[in-house]
């Protein structure tokens, strides 16, 4: 394997890590900031991805489709939240997985519109040609030959950075303090005259919109979308990242997503005396063990604060 090809592969792994980072930043708003145990987070990513794909394949320009896709994801958050946010934590967790599965099964079955299991092709619209333009500009003007995956890698991590900075900024606002108060003690917040239900709904919509962005970037990376890209396992890999990095810590999300992505894709480069499918299974055994070990011995994760941890 040549070094350039290898570089392309690592660029891919890091892009996936960036997409996971954005996905989990949204989850952090739900779980870490508000205390909502959302197990159906992948649905919001699917909403962002498929609404981008469906819009661009029906002639909407990509740049217009992206904000609309975020809006669709946020609206889905409101739709899921309206009936379920009054439920107890463990019920909410189960209902959100169910909602995510309903969405995935519908995408799978509406073959006419979404391509079903055959996939939605050319879902990234004008992105591949725009990517070529960027690469040509770098080569012609600066004389630098970029690997074809580099532009998306840079864009993904810039977006992740902007979202993280925005969240830190929101973190200093009274709104986020109220969210954290909801997480600590809902009744006290209600007694203080804050609208608990609206706060939760807003948090759900914000986190969903962020997951929608990760769906958009996923679409640009993959160009074709398949329903099996959005199985519940994605949410649980997200939880592994969140738990490892630390519930409540944005920096932890970034580090956790890089670590977990390397475990999922990166170990492909190590030589195992095992068949490829066995290696794949072994990776998830490792992820499972990480979740178990962190939950047992360091439930606040690598960077979380123990006093902010609410796992009751």
């Amino acid at each position: 394997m040549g070094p350039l090809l290898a570089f392309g592969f690592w660029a891919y792994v890091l892009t996936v890590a960036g997409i996971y980072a954005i996905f989990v930043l949204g989850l952090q708003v739900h779980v870490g900031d508000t205390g909502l145990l959302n197990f159906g987070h992948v649905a919001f990513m699917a909403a962002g991805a498929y609404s981008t794909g469906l819009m661009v394949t029906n002639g909407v320009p990509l740049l217009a489709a992206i904000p609309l896709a975020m809006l669709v994801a946020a609206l889905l958050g409101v739709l899921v939240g309206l009936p379920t946010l009054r439920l107890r934590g463990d019920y909410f967790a189960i209902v959100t997985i169910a909602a995510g599965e309903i969405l995935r099964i519908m995408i799978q079955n509406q073959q006419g519109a979404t391509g079903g299991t055959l996939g939605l092709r050319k879902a990234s619209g004008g992105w591949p040609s725009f990517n070529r333009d960027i690469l040509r500009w770098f080569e012609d003007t600066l004389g630098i030959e970029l690997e074809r995956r580099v532009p998306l890698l840079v864009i993904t991590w810039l977006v992740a950075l902007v979202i993280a900075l925005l969240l830190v900024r929101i973190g200093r606002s009274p709104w986020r303090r109220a969210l954290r108060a909801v997480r600590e003690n809902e009744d006290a917040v209600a007694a203080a005259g804050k609208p608990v239900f609206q706060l939760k709904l807003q948090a759900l919509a914000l986190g969903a919109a962020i997951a929608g962005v990760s769906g958009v970037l996923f679409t640009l990376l993959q160009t074709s979308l398949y329903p099996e890209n959005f199985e519940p396992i994605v949410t649980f890999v997200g939880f592994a990242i969140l738990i490892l990095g630390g519930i409540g810590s944005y920096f932890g999300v970034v580090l956790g997503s890089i670590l977990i992505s390397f475990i999922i894709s990166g170990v492909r480069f190590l030589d195992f005396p095992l068949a490829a499918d066995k290696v794949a299974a072994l990776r998830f055994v490792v992820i499972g063990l990480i979740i178990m070990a962190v939950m047992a011995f360091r439930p606040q994760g690598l960077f979380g604060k123990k006093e902010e941890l609410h796992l009751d």
Partner: protein
Amino acid sequence: MAPRAVRVGSARFRMDDLLQTTINGIASGSIYALGAIGLSLVYAILKLVNFAHGDFMTLGGYVAFAVNVSLGMPLVVAIAAAVVAVAVLGLVTEELIWRPMRKRGAGLMQMLLLSIGLAFVLRNLILLTWTGESRKLNVDDTASYGIGIGRVSLLQILVIGIAAAALVGVGLLLTRTYVGKSMRALSDSFDLAEVSGIDTKRVVTYTWILGGGLAGLAGVLAAVFTTLTPNMGWTLLLGIFAAIILGGIGNPFGALVGGLALGLVQEWSTNFVEPTYKEAIGFAVLILALLFRPNGLLGHATRTG
């Protein structure tokens, strides 16, 4: 799906469809119920939402496969082996994970997330051992018998018969025996049961034996009735949660009713919509149930908070 449109208008065929889907619904509902009773007991007594329960079932299916197909032993032996193996797995996880975690005062969500890690580990160890290829137990899946206007397959008879016997047995155990009554007492109030002199540690042990054993049995029946893959239990788990919530969390008899109701609704729905929507229908039922009867079909309104 085209032939079904032709059938519309003929009452006899529609009755036939209804009968077939009812039998299928009872069979799949029995599997949900067996899984749900075990999960519900563990939740009620130990306050553990065990996301690995589906993978416990899968393991039961594969143990049965190993005994029945790889070793060529009869199905009865395979079922016994699966029940014992998963009961032992339950006890081992109790000793190694759940008891130490409870001692440290771990919260509900901490245990729940831990069980997700355990689910990953189990499922992928199964994948590592038996590969992802779908497997079948050694049961004649073509045999069927005429009953009145419809036919019932040997698979359906096996699943419904074994599940019914197990469910009656569990019902008697919970209502007639000391251990069963103690379990129900613990699920009402762990502390009150303890001060009234019940040996809680022993009851916890029996809970894992019963819950694990039922999961193993449900896994074998699911393997007989559908196809055995490493994802089988995980796919069933959401339905099992739905069954528990439908029946009212912590009520083993509710779990039975919820399981059967879910199985029937899913199968009946195939008379009206594409069968590929079956699972989605089950989840929709779950969401509706939570909105309108949050304490379950058999539950009573309670004060929360």
